[in-house]
């Protein structure tokens, strides 16, 4: 028995928090309807029988190619910095996403 996937308001809030999206509660219903529509489609696809179908993923015969550990300089960084929404000297400037009390530099995962 395949468990049906469904997104409720609690789960939606969790996803919104993780993706740092500020969605007004008035739009929750519309978003939930649309997301659950996609999930229903996924549920229907789970009813398909793949018993004798080989997974594309494991059908790769070739091993991962590897390169020699040799550094190379790429000289077009300014072109990328110039295309950034906001360039600040040598940095990309972004809105501060999480406000912490600490003065510590944040560390990614």
């Amino acid at each position, binding site marked *: 028995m395949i468990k049906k996937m469904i997104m409720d308001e609690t789960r939606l809030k*969790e996803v919104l928090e*993780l*993706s*740092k999206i500020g969605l007004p509660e008035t739009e929750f219903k519309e978003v939930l309807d649309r997301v659950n529509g996609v999930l229903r489609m996924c549920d229907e696809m789970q009813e398909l029988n793949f018993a004798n179908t080989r997974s594309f*993923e494991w059908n*790769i015969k*070739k*091993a*991962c*190619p*590897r*390169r*020699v*550990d*040799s*550094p*190379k*300089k*790429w000289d077009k*960084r300014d072109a*990328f*910095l110039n295309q950034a929404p*906001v360039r*600040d*000297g*040598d*940095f*990309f*400037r*972004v*809105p*501060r*996403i999480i406000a*912490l*009390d*600490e*003065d*510590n*530099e*944040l*560390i*990614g*995962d």
Partner: protein
Amino acid sequence: MKRQVVIGLEIHLQLKTMSKLFCSCSTDYIGAIPNTNVCPICLAVPGSLPLLNDRAVELAVKLGLALHCDIQDNTRFHRKHYFYADLPKAYQITQFEYPIAAGGYVDIIVEGKHKRVHLDHLHLEEDAGKLVHQTSDGRLSGAAHSFVDYNRGGMPLSEIVSQPDINSSAEAIAYVEQIRQLARYLKVSDGEMESGSLRADVNISLSNNDGSLGTRVEIKNVNSLKSIERAIEYEIARQNKALDNGEKLIQETRLWDDATGVTRSMRGKESASDYRYYLEMDLAPIEVKPEYIKKIYQSLTEMPWEKRDRFIEQYKISLEESQQLTEQLEIANYFEECVKEGASPGKSANWIRSEVQSILREQKIDIINFQVSASELGKLIKKIDNRDISNTQAKDVLSAMLDKNLTLDNALEECGAITGRITGEALEIIIKKIIGCESETAEIIRSGQDIKGAKIKFLQGLVMRETRGSADPIEVLNILNVKLN
């Protein structure tokens, strides 16, 4: 009530490669101008494809073998999704279900007791970029913007995940030190916590009344061994207090604040499903065949714990001495070269642990930059062993070698130690002179009032000072005894 502390550690080691994990950008990013070690791959330009660094795989396998892991063939990379500015792709390429090394263990010694910490696995992953938060007036707090530097983005990391076998801050530190030492011995990583080439996340919980595991809290931002100790001690106290008060702990990620010495809630702990892992289809399975593993295994040199045990057995030194000497490979090699010159192992161990280490600390240098070669120090220590010169004289000679940049022979000459020890008739003349100057003390000894021997030792000290340590203290005492009794 007494609750059992249960700790698991995740250690991120930056692998010592020349280029990043999936692109050819340089890994030499410390002090580099921001966003100079970047390219379309590590900036996640659409259409760019990752290409795996062979050396990173080799170093991960090497580390895995040294940690007694089972090296896995056909392992895969996954995409771990989170939306944050330090990650231009909005996902990190990491290993999830199929890590390159599984199982394994690390043996530690804490307060003389041996303990085995089992490992869950070791996997390869790329590092994120660095975010800098700064306001226009230079302060860090209250900033409206963040600045992103992708020089670190894509650096190769090896994450070593332990099982929750650790039960105290002392064990956690011993575990981190053991892995750092191993990484340095194998030259797979600098293992510098200060520069971030070794980072640790601490998972800590207190056992429930029935012995089951309690709610786990992850602590991030512990950037030194001292921070690990303080953060663990703080968290144990915080969790105990909360449980004593009947509060319920929540599973969360907390950030260690070194300045105030507290952990603060950072975010609710995500589970694997929150990261929406799925296979990285741009990278095929990593092939690690038995011949490849065998070749790397054969390249492994003596492990630090093997060296530590061999030193105890071969040189008859204590565990503490051996631990200190084998802490760094270069120091262990220096010690063995000293001994090869004929110096006694015990004296060589003492000299390196005291004199040499003190000079290294003072000059803030590593042993490889120490001016005095192991061969010369060995010859100097051999002279002490042979009682050609005293310990004090040898220290003068070492100082002369360092201060005046002299060779051993020149320093011996400079310190007047080349002609050998003051002995026999020459020594008797000096002793006679000292007795003459200290006639009252000599009389006390002659009259048998120096019951504890303090007076004769005083005279012995004067003679040693007069001879600048070049007399044999036993010979001095013998002559004094003959002359005063």
